[in-house]
């Protein structure tokens, strides 16, 4: 096909590639470089100091904690939802599929406000919670809740098409051979979906650590207590502490890069094992 294109197509092609490169360079590479350049502008000592300062440490710890809770929760949820959708027929299946996509389509701010409405001092369950001394809003639980809500489509969305394509035959074969449901899951289903699952976990984790909007609404921005890394960056930035802000931001950027590399290598491996399975 391309061989039959007229000669000037070469020029067009080069122009298009150049355009794409310029665009990517300007909007993606340049900002990324700027983050690291600004973070290191006062030298490694200042950079390091910004990361080991107590508030930064507590923000990093909180971010890791939130991810450590919300990612496993969403793995369990994603597996259940994908299993139900791919392997069973039931009423309201399409509604469930649509609902899973909801966090993608609503603004994270709304996702955060929902929890303020539910658990805040003025909210539905607020008075009861205050009476019983349970703090959810402006505390770690609400940050976890908001993060779970925002990240819950990632694993499910990754697994649903994969499990649908694989069908039920392998599981039925295992059951027919006398395996229990749990053993079938462990020895047949899980190996079949492992790469897709890992891929979903990576994306889910990246979003859980990077989430700003929903968390910002519910956290209360208490330094050293309810600040995650993205919130900490914002506070530092608003205080004109640019080097420290960019130093923490560079950690997030690094996370994004590591995720990207892992994702790409997984895609390669996933694609490869997928082909050989045919």
């Amino acid at each position, binding site marked *: 096909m391309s061989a039959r294109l007229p000669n000037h197509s070469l020029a067009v092609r080069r122009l298009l590639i150049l355009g794409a490169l310029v665009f990517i360079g300007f909007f993606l590479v340049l900002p990324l470089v700027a983050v690291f350049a600004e973070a290191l502008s006062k030298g490694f000592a200042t950079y390091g100091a910004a990361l080991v300062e107590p508030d930064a440490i507590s923000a990093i710890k909180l971010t890791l904690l939130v991810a450590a809770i919300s990612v496993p929760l969403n793995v369990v949820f994603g597996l259940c939802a994908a299993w139900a959708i791919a392997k069973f027929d039931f009423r309201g299946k399409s509604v469930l599929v649509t609902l899973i996509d909801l966090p993608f389509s609503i603004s994270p701010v709304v996702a955060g406000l929902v929890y303020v409405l539910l658990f805040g001092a003025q909210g539905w369950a607020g008075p009861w919670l205050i009476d019983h001394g349970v703090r959810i809003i402006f505390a770690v639980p609400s940050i976890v809740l908001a993060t779970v809500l925002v990240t819950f489509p990632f694993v499910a969305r990754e697994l649903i098409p994969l499990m649908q394509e694989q069908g039920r*035959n*392998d599981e*039925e*074969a*295992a*059951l*027919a*051979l*006398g*395996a*229990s449901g749990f*053993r079938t899951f462990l*020895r*047949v289903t899980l*190996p*079949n979906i492992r790469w897709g699952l890992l891929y979903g976990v990576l994306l889910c984790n990246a979003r859980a650590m990077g989430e700003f909007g929903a968390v910002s609404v519910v956290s209360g921005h208490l330094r050293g207590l309810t600040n995650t890394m993205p919130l900490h960056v914002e506070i530092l930035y608003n205080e004109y502490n640019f080097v420290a802000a960019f130093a923490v931001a560079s950690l997030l950027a690094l996370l994004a890069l590591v995720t990207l590399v892992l994702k790409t290598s997984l895609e390669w491996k996933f694609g490869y094992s997928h082909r*050989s*399975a*045919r």
Partner: protein
Amino acid sequence: MISLHHISKSFGAFAALHNVDLTVRDGEFLALLGPSGSGKTTLLRIIAGLAFPDEGYVRFNGEDVTELPVAERKVGFVFQQYALFKHMTVLDNVGFGLSVRSRAQRPSRAKIRARARELLDLVQLDGLGDRYPAQLSGGQQQRVALARALAVEPQLLLLDEPFGALDAKVRKELRRWLRQLHEQMGLTSIFVTHDQEEALELADRVVVLDRGVIEQIGTPEEVYMAPRSGFVSGFVGDCNSLPVTVRGGRAQFEDQALDVAVDRLRDGNARLDFRPHDVVLSENGHGLPLHVSGVYRRGGSWRVEGTVNSSGQIVEIDLDADQPAPQLGSQLAFSITRARVFAVERAH
């Protein structure tokens, strides 16, 4: 002995099976034959415990197993696409059924491997145990699936379109081999197929299904030679159908009386079925005229295609290939030696 009583099953508005009764004898090789959508696979899955009937019950040796899930029925099931576990070696696939037993009943790892090797020998795949399913041919995968199903020592072997995905030569070999295996191991086997030739060649008895209803149960000979309905007649084996009118116990095609006895049919329109080989050429020009439009060799006979009337009704007949092939465009005359007449089915 397996018996099914009044089995009905619907998927939404679609009635997959309607009031099916069936008894399978021990040691029997049974074919469930029908077009797609006839309910044959659903019936097999209900026997296996992979699907459950809306109504009716299933008995194994008199014991009601209707509610029993597949894992507790001790059946071997071979799936249409084999459903081998891609991430396991062939040996692990075959040993799977033993390795998932409860701790008390599970043989040692070495014993499982030894048993799996025996089974691979049995299905003539010795030496391929360390390969992965993707590295095997279709026929080999099929045999791994069989070995895996046999590892749990089932009394009943169920096969869903076992030869569907294989090429003709491999299919023929595997059929013969499966039949041997069935006898050697004293199994009761039920297989689903849409290929009537396969059913007639392999099975002790054939169950012909159409739209969720059993049309006929019988030996291959009975089903082929004495089809009980127009559907069976048309589906099993090659068959010509002529629209005829019945008057006073005789069938008539257009204005020509046919020498075919008709009982149990009222006067009126009917359908006359005859096999391509149930004809003789008439020397004297009497009989049905056939305007030859195509001839090809089919083993020891000529398969001759042609029209029998001006409206272009097409008929196929077989003629002895020792004779020269009829010329295209020539006119033959033949009479039908064996035929069956069915009442015209109402539109469905």
